[in-house]
C-alpha cells in the first residue's frame, strides 16, 4: 500500500468515506412511503378544492386493503402537505395511475389543477384522467366488494375499453397535448357508479379545459372512427332498414382508416370530407341476406355504410352545436393552409358553420364460419 500511486490511495479513501454517507440525501425508502394510486378532485364550498386520495396498505392482516384520505385545500399539493399529517407514511405521487374529476369541477376548467401534474417530475404523463358523473370523492370512498384495489380496477377498465376503441385514450399527455393544439379539443371518459361497480357512461367533450357536452358510451365506436385510424375494434350496429324491427350486425376485428380532405367552396370557406374505410369480420347477423353471395354481401355493406353516415352526421352536428372540435377537423384544415392564413381564419368562430361531409366505406373481410 505504501508504494501505491497517490491516485489509488485517494480512490480507496473516497470509497471508505462513501460507506458513512448513506442515510444522507433525499431518500424514498419503500416501506416508509404511502403510494397515492388514485386521486380525485371535486369542487368544494367557496371555491375550495376537495381532494381525496387512496393508497394501498402493506399490512395484509388489516381488514381494509387501502386507506382513503380526504380534505379541503386550495390546491392539490397543499392537500398533500395537509394529508401527510394524517398518515404515518410519506405521501408520494410517483405511483399515481388514475385521477378523477368531479363533473362540477370539470365544468369550471381543469387546467390549473393539472399544473402540478405537469410540473412534478414524479407524476407519469400516462396518468389516466376521467370525469365522474356527480361526486368523484364518493366514487373513491366507496368499497367495491369484488375489487379491493380501486385504482387497479379503474385503470383496468379504462385500459381495456380504450384498447377496444370504445373510448378514446385519455391520459395526462393526451389531454395537455390536445389542449395546447389549436385544431383539436381534449376528451375524457365519463364514469359513474352502478350498484357495486363502476361503468363508463360516455365521452366528455371539452372546449379548452372546460367540460361542455357528452356523447353516450354507445356511440363511442363511431366517435373513434371519426377521430383517427386504428386496428382492432368491435361494433354492433342496429340497421334501421330491412326487416321490420331492424336487423343487428356485429362486426369484429375492425381495421379503420380515416382520411380528412379539405376543399374550398366558391366563397372560399373550407369544406371537409371525412373518408373512413373499414374492414371487418361479421360474427353475428340476424338479417335475411346470404353473405356468401357477393351481391348480397355488398348490399349489407351498403346498409352499414348508410347507418354509420347517419350516426356520424348527427355526432358532428352535435359537436358543431357545442363548438367543440373533439375529432380534430381543425388540424386537417390547418395542415391545408399556411399558418398565417390559419391565424386569420379565426377557426373557433368558423367551426360551427363549416360544412362537414362523411363517407363510410365498409368491407366485409369474411362472414364467419357458417356455410349456408
Amino acid at each position, binding site marked *: 500500500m505504501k508504494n*501505491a*500511486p497517490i491516485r*489509488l490511495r485517494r480512490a480507496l479513501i473516497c*470509497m471508505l468515506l*462513501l*460507506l458513512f*454517507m*448513506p*442515510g444522507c*440525501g*433525499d*431518500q*424514498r*425508502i*419503500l*416501506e416508509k*412511503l404511502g*403510494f397515492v*394510486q388514485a386521486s380525485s378532485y371535486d369542487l368544494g364550498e367557496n371555491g375550495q378544492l376537495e381532494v381525496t386520495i387512496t393508497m*394501498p396498505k*402493506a*399490512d*395484509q392482516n388489516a381488514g381494509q386493503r387501502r386507506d382513503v384520505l380526504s380534505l379541503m385545500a386550495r390546491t392539490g399539493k397543499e392537500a398533500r402537505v395537509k394529508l401527510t399529517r394524517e398518515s404515518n407514511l410519506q405521501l*408520494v405521487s*410517483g*405511483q399515481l*395511475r388514475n385521477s378523477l374529476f368531479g363533473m362540477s369541477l370539470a365544468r369550471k376548467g381543469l387546467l390549473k389543477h393539472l399544473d402540478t401534474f405537469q410540473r412534478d417530475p*414524479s407524476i*407519469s404523463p400516462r396518468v389516466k384522467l376521467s370525469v365522474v358523473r356527480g361526486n368523484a370523492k364518493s366514487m373513491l370512498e366507496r368499497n367495491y366488494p369484488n375489487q379491493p384495489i380501486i385504482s*387497479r380496477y379503474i385503470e383496468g377498465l379504462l385500459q381495456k375499453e380504450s384498447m377496444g376503441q370504445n373510448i378514446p385514450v385519455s391520459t395526462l399527455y393526451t389531454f395537455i397535448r390536445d389542449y395546447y393544439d389549436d385544431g383539436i379539443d381534449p376528451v375524457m371518459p365519463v364514469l359513474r357508479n352502478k350498484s357495486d361497480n363502476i361503468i363508463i357512461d360516455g365521452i366528455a367533450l371539452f372546449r379548452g379545459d372546460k367540460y361542455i357536452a357528452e356523447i353516450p358510451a354507445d356511440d363511442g365506436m363511431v366517435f373513434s372512427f371519426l377521430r383517427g385510424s386504428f386496428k382492432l375494434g368491435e361494433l354492433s350496429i342496429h340497421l334501421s332498414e330491412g326487416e321490420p324491427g331492424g336487423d343487428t350486425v356485429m362486426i369484429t376485428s375492425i381495421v379503420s382508416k380515416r382520411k380528412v380532405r379539405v376543399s374550398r367552396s366558391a366563397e372560399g370557406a373550407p369544406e371537409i370530407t371525412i373518408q373512413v374505410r373499414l374492414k371487418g369480420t361479421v360474427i353475428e347477423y340476424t338479417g335475411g341476406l346470404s353473405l356468401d353471395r357477393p351481391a348480397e354481401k355488398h348490399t349489407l355493406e351498403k346498409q352499414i355504410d348508410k347507418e354509420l353516415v347517419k350516426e356520424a352526421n348527427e355526432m358532428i352536428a352535435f359537436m358543431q352545436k357545442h363548438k367543440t372540435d373533439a375529432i380534430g377537423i381543425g388540424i386537417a384544415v390547418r395542415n391545408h393552409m399556411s399558418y398565417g392564413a390559419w391565424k386569420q381564419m379565426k377557426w373557433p368562430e368558423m367551426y360551427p358553420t363549416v360544412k362537414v361531409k362523411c363517407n363510410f366505406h365498409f368491407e366485409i373481410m369474411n362472414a364467419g364460419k357458417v356455410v349456408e
Partner: protein
Amino acid sequence: MSNSQTESSLPTLAHTLDQFEDCMDLSHREFPNLGVHAVYLNTLISGAKLQNEVFKPLHDLEPDQLTTLFQQSQFEKQTDDKALILGILSGKAAVFAEEQVYLIDVRGAEGRAITNSEIETTITGPHDALTEQVSLSLMLIRARIRSTHLKIVKLSVGEITKNDVYILYIKDIANMDNVQELKQRISDIEIDAVHDTNMLIQLIDDRPYALFPQILTTERPDAVVSKLVAGRVVGIMDGSPSAFSVPSTFYEFFSSSDDYYQRWMLGTATRMLRFFALIVTVSLTALYVSVTTFHYEMIPENLLMTLVESRSRVPFPPLYEALLMEMTIELLREAGARLPTKIGQTIGIVGGIVIGQAAVQAGFTSNILIIAVALSTIASFVIPNYTMSASIRLMRFGFILLAGLWGNLGIAIGITATTIHLCSLISMKASYVTPIAPNQPYEWRDVFIRAPFNLLKKRPTQSRPMNMTRVKPKR
C-alpha cells in the same frame, strides 16, 4: 546463494560437495577403478534412467574407454561452476572424470497424471488439462501442433527458486515484438520466488493496480493452441497447471472453448448470455437497492405491494440489507471453496436452507432481495474465467454502495467509471478493449457472437499477427 561465490572457476568435486553440504538428498557414488565420481540429487532423478545411462555403461567399462563414452552426445561437458550446480539442481547427474565434468539428464520427478480440467470444464471437446509438470503440459500442446513453427523458448524466474518459464509462439504468425517484450518482462522480474502462473502474470502485466486481470490464464491445452494460432504468445511455468497468453482483451475472458465446439447459433447464444450475465451480476442487486431507496416510481404496480410487504418487516435500510446478504453469499462461497469437497456440500445445504428460508421468515431480509442476490451470484459464475468473475464480484460491492448513495445516478456513475477504467487498460502494450476501441468491426463476429467458421477468416488484430489470414475453409 549464488551471489556468495564470485569466482566462476573450473568446477571441482570438492567444491561441488561443499556447496551441497547438509543436503541430505545429495548422493555421491564413486567408481574407484575408473576414478569416476557421480553426484546427483536422488529426490529429482529417476533410478532406472540413472542405472541405464550412467551406472551400466560405467560398470562394463575399461579405464581406457572412458573418453569414448563421454563423447556420446547425452554427456554434456560443463566448464562453468554455476551452470553445473544449476544442472544438478534441475535433476541432472554430474559425472567427474579425468579433470572433466559432464552432466547427464536423468530427471524423473514424479508428478500427478493428466486429469480432467476442473476450473474450465466443457461439455463437448477435449477434457484434459495442463499439469504442474511442465514437460507433460508441453507434450499436450506439442502433440496438438505438429509443426516445426511452434517455437519454445526457455527462461528462468525467481532468484532462489529458479523456476523454468517456457514461452511458446508460432513462427510467422506471432509478432516477434510481443515475444521479445514478454522475454524482456520476464527476465526483468526481480523476486525471490514465483509459485504460480497467476502470480507470474501479476508481475508482468501493464497495470499492476488495475481491478481486472489483463492477461488471460487457462488450464486447457486446446485453448492454448487456439491462442497460439491466433498469433498470441503463450507462457507456461514449471510447477503451475495453467498457461497464460498475451496480449489479452477484456472480451476473451467471456469466451469458452465450448462456444467453438457447439454449432454457431448455440455458441452465439451462449456468448450473448454471458454478456447478459455480466450486466445482471453487476447491476441487479444495485438496482434493487436504488429502486427501494430512491426510485419507487419504477416498480410495476403488481410488484409494488409484494415488495412493500416483504420490505416492511426488515429492520435495515436497503443498502445495509443488500450488503449483508451479499456478504453472506461471499462467506458461503469462500467457505465452500476452502473446505474439502465433502464438507463443501454441507455448506451449500446449510447456507441454502438457513440463509434462504429462515432469513426471510425471521424478517431479516426481503425475499425479493434473496432472489436478486442469488441471481447475480449465479450470473457471476457464468463468466468462464475465475479471476475475471472474482474481479466482477468485487466490483459489484462498489455498485451497491453507489446505488445506496445516489440511486440510479450512482449506478450510472459506476458504469461510467468502470468503462473509463477498462478503456485505460492495456495488455502487452495493446488496447484491452479491442475490438471496440480501436474499433475493428470485422472482429465483432468472433467476440460478441460466434460466427460460422467460414466467416472467421482473419486473426484478431490485437496481437498484430505477421499473417492476418487464417486458412480459408474449402467451401
